[in-house]
């Protein structure tokens, strides 16, 4: 062997060149200051909301729309919010819907995840139900409300059924596309490390598929929320408790336009809030930890 004496003289030089290269090629990432975030991210949507409110008020003040049963004033809608808040009913409406929505979503997660894995990994299952699963995503879940009412009657289990039928396909499909997009290199690397069979699925495939899975969860939540609102509007029954969909339907029967606006805005904001509080941070964390999210 003509090779042994390598370390003593050469190593320090090599080491310091290396340290220099490492320092040169490592990018420093710093936190964005709050002022920047305020100007870049928070101010623009606030400005947009202000413009909408101004136009809305303008339509009424300039008497372009002059019929409070068609378009209430922003003040009247604010009044509807305030009354419900002061009567202690506002949080009750929100909680009824949100608890249903989140519980239904969790059930969808429990069912959709193994289903997605099965479709992704078993050829026969994929050929059998893969196309139906992605086709179901384009079926508006409102369509499930009438059969669900006939099967299960007007109760909570019917609501959950409609949520499941809306969300399970999204979650399963997200996982399937996540698994499909796992780079083959990771699987080969995993195999050389000894991750085969179940260990390969657990240590390599599932974590590698996480971005697609989270995207599917995000879409699944949007579908859950929509299906639930449809179910609440159509299946309006006092014993079920008043959620946001029922609030909207009640407002319609009472011809109370301010309350209709209140309900619509609540449905919109709660949907956005859940996404902003739960799913967007989850997605950002998954992508950022993999270096897939470039700070802008």
């Amino acid at each position: 062997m003509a090779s042994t004496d390598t370390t003593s003289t050469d190593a320090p030089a090599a080491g310091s060149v290396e340290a220099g290269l490492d320092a040169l090629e490592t990018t420093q990432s710093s936190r964005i200051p709050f002022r920047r975030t305020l100007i870049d991210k928070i101010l623009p949507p606030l400005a947009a909301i202000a413009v909408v409110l101004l136009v809305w008020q303008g339509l009424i003040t300039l008497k372009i729309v002059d019929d409070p049963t068609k378009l209430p004033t922003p003040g009247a809608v604010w009044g509807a919010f305030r009354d419900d808040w002061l009567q202690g009913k506002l949080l009750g409406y929100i909680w009824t819907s949100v608890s249903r929505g989140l519980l239904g979503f969790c059930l969808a997660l429990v069912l959709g995840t193994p289903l997605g894995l099965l479709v992704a990994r078993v050829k026969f299952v994929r050929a059998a139900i893969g196309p139906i699963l992605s086709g179901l995503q384009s079926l508006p879940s409102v369509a499930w409300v009438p059969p669900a009412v006939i099967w299960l009657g007007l109760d909570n289990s019917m609501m959950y059924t409609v949520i499941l039928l809306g969300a399970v396909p999204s979650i399963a499909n997200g996982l399937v596309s996540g698994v499909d997009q796992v780079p083959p290199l990771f699987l080969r690397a995993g195999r050389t490390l000894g991750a085969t069979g179940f260990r390969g699925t657990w240590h390599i495939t599932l974590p590698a598929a996480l971005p697609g899975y989270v995207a599917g969860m995000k879409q699944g939540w949007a579908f859950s929320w929509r299906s639930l609102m449809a179910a609440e509007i159509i299946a309006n029954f006092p014993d079920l408790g008043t959620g946001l969909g029922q609030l909207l339907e009640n407002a319609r029967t009472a011809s109370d336009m301010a309350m209709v606006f209140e309900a619509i805005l609540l449905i919109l904001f709660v949907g956005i809030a859940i996404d902003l509080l739960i799913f967007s941070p989850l997605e950002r964390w998954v992508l950022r930890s993999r270096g897939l999210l470039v700070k802008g």
Partner: protein
Amino acid sequence: MATTLAKAARSVEYAARLEHVSKSFATPGGSQLVLDDISLDVAPGEFVTLLGASGCGKSTLLNLVAGLDEPTAGTIRTDGRPALMFQEHALFPWLTAGKNIELALKLRGVPRPERRGKAEELLELVRLQGAYGKRVHELSGGMRQRVALARALAQESQLLLMDEPFAALDAITRDVLHDELTRIWSETGLSVLFVTHNVREAVRLAQRVVLLSSRPGRVAREWEVGIPQPRRIEDAPVAELSLEITEVLRGEIRRHGQH
């Protein structure tokens, strides 16, 4: 007992032994022979580079030795499951540098309390102490390959297979990594089978250079590299031998243009 003794005795003989290995792939026009009757030994502690132009099936050969694919004919024996390093770092982006190494330890059955310390040791070996908690995307190309090397070493395999691991790096980084690999090889006593298309790299690193011909891949010639380490890629003897090998390699490639 007798079998384990026999195994131990045999494992001293070679780190990898390839006997009359052939590989063909099914193509629309029939089967295509990629590797033809390759016999090759890698001795324990030996550093061998496999050199060849594109289409010589060097990566296919490495996959066979790694056990990722089966030969069509012939036998491949290795002393345990070899570690494999790719041209792309193939680090898992959902884990930190340290956790990537720990995963290799875990899959090998190293108990949890020992993993952290071993991972830190391996990072130190590739001079990346302090990179334990770094995410893959926070590391430079050269650092990623060093973590990948540390992860391969974590397998504590007798044989390290390297598939053009430095091909995507810039020249200075590659040069530094050549030094590192030579140092780690001599410190650990590993056997290395290193695939490259870069003649100078092959001569810079190896004790023995094996030249493969293309389509199908056959062992065309072998050179013992007697130049003492530490070598540099710009050393005169390295350049001289590289020139000689390049001439033979060109001859091999030229044959394909004639028909």
